[in-house]
């Protein structure tokens, strides 16, 4: 018993120490960027957010992944002080969301799902307006505008009316605006919803750049699995509760290993050959399934070791879809269908 306890305790302590060091290294402040305790939001008989707990370290990229209606937006609204918690609480940038709402708002940047730009003003005028609202010192306004426009690569469109911007450019301008007052944390609620894949990629480039060059903590919500991969840690949220929270690779590892499935001319012979070569192999639905550490590297050796002609090969690495399926018992796509993105696209189109 004792022998088993000790290594566990040691590794826990080491992890905690390493995490603490990482946080101190990221910033001079040592409190977490976001600290959430039992946060709950109840509407009449619907519990939108059901007592969630988590912390986000300074400089971390953190994602809320879940289907529409899971409670992501309600949770982010409470963190941004746009909704009052029914019970529980949170501190954001060191301020309490319930009692220090104004201070919280000063220290966070917000990018909403819907566009919130004045398209009759130029990009620069929108930014100048924002700078005043958030009390950016007069002497710094010009240099900050120049800086954030560079960050999202829109410098050459600075003097253009926002009404001439495409949907993707407007969204990137909003991200720039969210960074204008040098917030400690940038909140992005479904930042790429309704945009085409190329634009989505550009936006993620922008966000990565903000993170590396400005050192800002990033908190975003998404229902796109591939986008959640940009996060260092993901909280999977469903029916108002966090059902899993970890690094993407840990989450994926928790649902199983990589697999290589093969169909051969003689599965029986191949099974024996592969097992004797040291592979863990089982009979699958069609053919054989080998459980491996790294599917990419294993495909070649497995085909060679099978000893009989291989007809098909399917390699698979667990995805966040598998993770979501594992924890909720269903696929994320069933939940929102196509209605939501299509609506968002129509919404964006009307504005552009």
């Amino acid at each position, binding site marked *: 018993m004792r022998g088993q306890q000790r290594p566990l305790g040691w590794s826990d302590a080491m992890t905690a120490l390493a995490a603490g060091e990482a946080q101190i290294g990221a910033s001079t402040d040592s409190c977490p960027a976001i600290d959430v305790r039992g946060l709950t939001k109840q509407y009449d008989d619907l519990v939108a957010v059901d007592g969630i707990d988590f912390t986000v370290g300074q400089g971390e990229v953190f994602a809320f992944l879940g289907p529409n209606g899971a409670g992501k937006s309600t949770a982010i609204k409470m963190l*941004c002080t*746009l909704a009052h918690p029914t019970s529980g609480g949170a501190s954001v940038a*060191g301020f309490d969301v319930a009692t220090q709402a*104004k201070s919280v708002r000063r220290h966070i940047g917000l990018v*909403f799902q819907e*566009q919130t730009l*004045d398209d009759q003003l130029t990009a620069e005028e929108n930014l100048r307006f924002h700078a*005043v*609202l958030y*009390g950016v010192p007069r002497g710094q306004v010009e240099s900050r505008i120049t800086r954030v426009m560079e960050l999202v690569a829109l410098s050459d469109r600075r003097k253009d009316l926002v009404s001439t911007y495409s949907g993707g450019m407007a969204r990137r301008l909003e991200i720039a605006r969210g960074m204008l007052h040098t917030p400690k944390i940038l909140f992005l609620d479904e930042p790429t919803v309704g945009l085409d894949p190329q634009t989505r990629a550009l936006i993620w480039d922008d966000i990565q750049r903000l993170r590396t060059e400005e050192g800002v903590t990033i908190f975003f919500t998404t229902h796109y699995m591939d986008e959640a991969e940009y996060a260092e840690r993901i909280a999977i949220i469903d029916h108002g509760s966090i059902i899993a929270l970890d690094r993407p690779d840990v989450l994926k590892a928790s649902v199983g290993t990589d697999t290589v499935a093969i169909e051969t001319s003689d599965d029986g012979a191949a099974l024996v050959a592969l097992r004797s070569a040291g592979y863990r192999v089982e009979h699958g639905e069609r053919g054989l399934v080998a459980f491996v550490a790294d599917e990419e590297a294993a495909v070649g050796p497995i085909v060679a070791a099978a000893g009989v002609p291989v007809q098909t090969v399917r390699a698979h690495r667990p995805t966040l879809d598998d993770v979501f399926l594992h924890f909720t018992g269903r696929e994320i796509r069933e939940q929102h269908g196509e209605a939501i993105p299509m609506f968002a696209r129509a919404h964006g189109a009307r504005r552009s």
Partner: protein
Amino acid sequence: MSTVTTADITVPAQPTETQLSDEVRVVGMVWERELIRYGRTRTRIVSGLVQPVLFLFVMGYGMSGLVGTTGGFNFRQFVYPGVVAMSVVMTAMFSALSIVWDREFGFLREMLVAPVSRVSLVLGKTAGGATVAAAQGTIMLVLAPLVGIHLTPVLVVQMIAIELVMAVAMTTFGVFVASRIQKMESFQVVMQMLLMPMLFLSGALFPLNGLPGWLTVITRLNPLTYAIAPLRQVVFAAQDMSPAARARFPTNVTLFGYTLSIGMELAIVVVFAVIFFVLAFRGLSKTE
């Protein structure tokens, strides 16, 4: 323990509380945005001129046949201050009701989530709307010679001052109404159900004396009544009018048999403006 102390030291070091100078800056910025938008929409300036011009010339000539001329003074001259007021009122309301657009297109949210006082936002909006509306009213002054109204430098100053008071009251009224409107579709309805009756029952287009009792009561409840009378009074005071014409086109507002002075009328307008300001602030405080 050390984490707590570090946080305690770092937090007050940053200016987290909004200061008065910051709020003044916000008022200025919201005001500036109104001016930028006004200057950028030429069609609005032109359309803001078309309707009053229609009333002034088309209705002015049309009604002249009916009303006739008394002592060399005609209906167009009578209606001119009312038409100037109309253009001020319409511009002020339009500017204030742009909040409905801001809500629809999301920009209202950008303003409401900012760590600033809603008072500053309403003040900025009011100042902006009032400036734009007074500017539109001032543009109307170029029409004065065409209808035989004689302008003096003093009269121009007086008119602009009264236009500003009127514009402030109407902008706060508009912001209050806009804060209660959630949908764009309601905008047209409000314009027609509120603005047109207010204009018609304000004495802008016809004298308020000799109306039936129930109509008199309504006109006296209308804030615009007290804003249009002073404008007409200063305009008429600067004209060379015969006593007969002055008797035919009275300018004073009577309340319970008491004739109000310009100062009292404007004071009533200011009271309305303050009430609307409070209502507008409360209306905007309810959201977000």
